[in-house]
């Protein structure tokens, strides 16, 4: 779903200053291709730092999709109607699929699936902080679709033009499928706000109150605290800055909230005529850092659930491998 953590890492893999003449030439050719708006494919030469940045970003994105299945999976068996249950199942299945597209894109850079999983399961890899919040009521399902998927789409659309082609292709597929995620969420909330009881309307407002701030944190730290952003922009990995995306999301969401009949929990949120944009209150970045570092409401639970699913599935993977080996031996005999 998204990759905020890349911005919080220090520039730990800064390009080396000592390079061979050949490497300098390759680097120049690479830069020229980036400047010309060319796409880079898996087997093309690329700077090591570009490769590492992409592996980190794409794998974080993949992990976010996979972990993102958990908060919603929590409500599949308790969806209020068969229709809502079918919708939620389809959405969670999509997220599994999106994770797979992204893992495949990351693997083209030379990191194996097992290495990627290992990084997630051991807690070394990051995923989007948003999935470490609990889903307490049915209204959380609609709110996640509306706000969380809305923010994710805002973030993901520019990545469809990422300079690394396998990532861009995966993103095009994901964006095409994800629009339904946001629309179903908004429609679910609208149904409750239009036809629901007072208690149900209050439930929607409560969900919006809890998800609003974590959603706008999804765009990552402000630009002046995002040290790697400039390099990612230079390389065409990132196309639009965190603050710009956050502002676009807020501006788009205010009118949707009005239509829905909910308030957004920010007393400082107001239209600024001069900027032709909404001003908004200060974001609590200490919370963001805490959740990202592993100390959010559900970090341990999410990771434990993911590791358990992987370990419990081991016998299936082993049996399928054993069966495949047996068939191969039979054919050879």
């Amino acid at each position, binding site marked *: 779903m998204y990759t905020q953590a890349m911005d919080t890492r220090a520039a730990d893999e800064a390009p080396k200053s000592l390079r061979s003449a050949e490497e300098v030439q390759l680097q120049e050719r690479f830069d020229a291709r980036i400047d010309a708006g060319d796409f880079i*494919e898996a*087997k*093309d030469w690329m700077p090591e730092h570009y490769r590492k940045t992409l592996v980190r970003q794409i794998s974080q994105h993949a992990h976010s999709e996979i972990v993102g299945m958990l908060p919603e999976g929590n409500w599949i068996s308790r969806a209020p109607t068969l229709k809502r249950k079918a919708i939620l199942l*389809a959405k969670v*299945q*999509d997220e599994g*699929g999106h994770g*797979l*597209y992204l893992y*495949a894109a990351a*693997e083209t850079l030379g990191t*194996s*699936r*097992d290495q990627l999983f290992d990084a997630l399961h051991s807690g070394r890899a990051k995923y989007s902080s948003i999935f470490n919040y609990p889903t307490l009521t049915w209204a959380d399902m609609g709110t996640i679709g509306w706000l969380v998927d809305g923010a994710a789409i805002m973030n993901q659309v520019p990545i469809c033009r990422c300079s690394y082609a396998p990532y861009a*292709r*995966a993103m095009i*597929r994901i964006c095409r*499928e994800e629009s339904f995620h946001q629309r179903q969420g908004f429609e679910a909330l609208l149904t409750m706000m239009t036809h629901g009881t007072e208690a149900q309307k209050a439930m929607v407002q409560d969900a919006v109150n809890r998800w609003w701030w974590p959603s706008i944190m999804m765009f990552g730290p402000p630009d002046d605290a995002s040290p790697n952003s400039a390099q990612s922009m230079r390389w065409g990995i990132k196309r639009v800055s965190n603050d710009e995306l956050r502002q676009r999301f807020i501006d788009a969401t205010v009118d949707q909230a009005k239509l829905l009949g909910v308030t957004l929990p920010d007393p400082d949120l107001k239209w600024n005529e001069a900027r032709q944009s909404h001003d908004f209150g200060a974001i609590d970045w200490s919370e963001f850092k805490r959740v990202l570092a592993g100390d959010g409401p559900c970090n341990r639970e999410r990771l434990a659930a993911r590791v358990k699913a992987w*370990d419990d599935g*081991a016998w299936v*993977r*082993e049996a*399928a*491998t054993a*069966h*495949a080996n047996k*068939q191969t031996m039979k054919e050879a005999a």
Partner: protein
Amino acid sequence: MSDRTEWPLWEVFVRSKAGLDHKHCGSLHAADPKLAIQMARDVYTRRQEGVSIWVVRSDQIVASDPGDKAMYFDPAEDKVYRHPTFYELPKSVDHM
């Protein structure tokens, strides 16, 4: 897990509708061909994107070397006479 052997990688090609060719759409890991086809259906055709699927082991694909791109493909660049637009004909027969 004791056995750390990854399932092999497969490339997936989907025919979106009858009459069109199969087009590469991505890759996935699967233990054998049968599972690869079933997984390809779940991963790449959740919205009726296809009527037929091919899978092929990624390690079985032979590809041209990106380093040879210029050598391989540039020679066609100056052969404009291979295109119909190279030939100027009178208006009356220009639909030819």
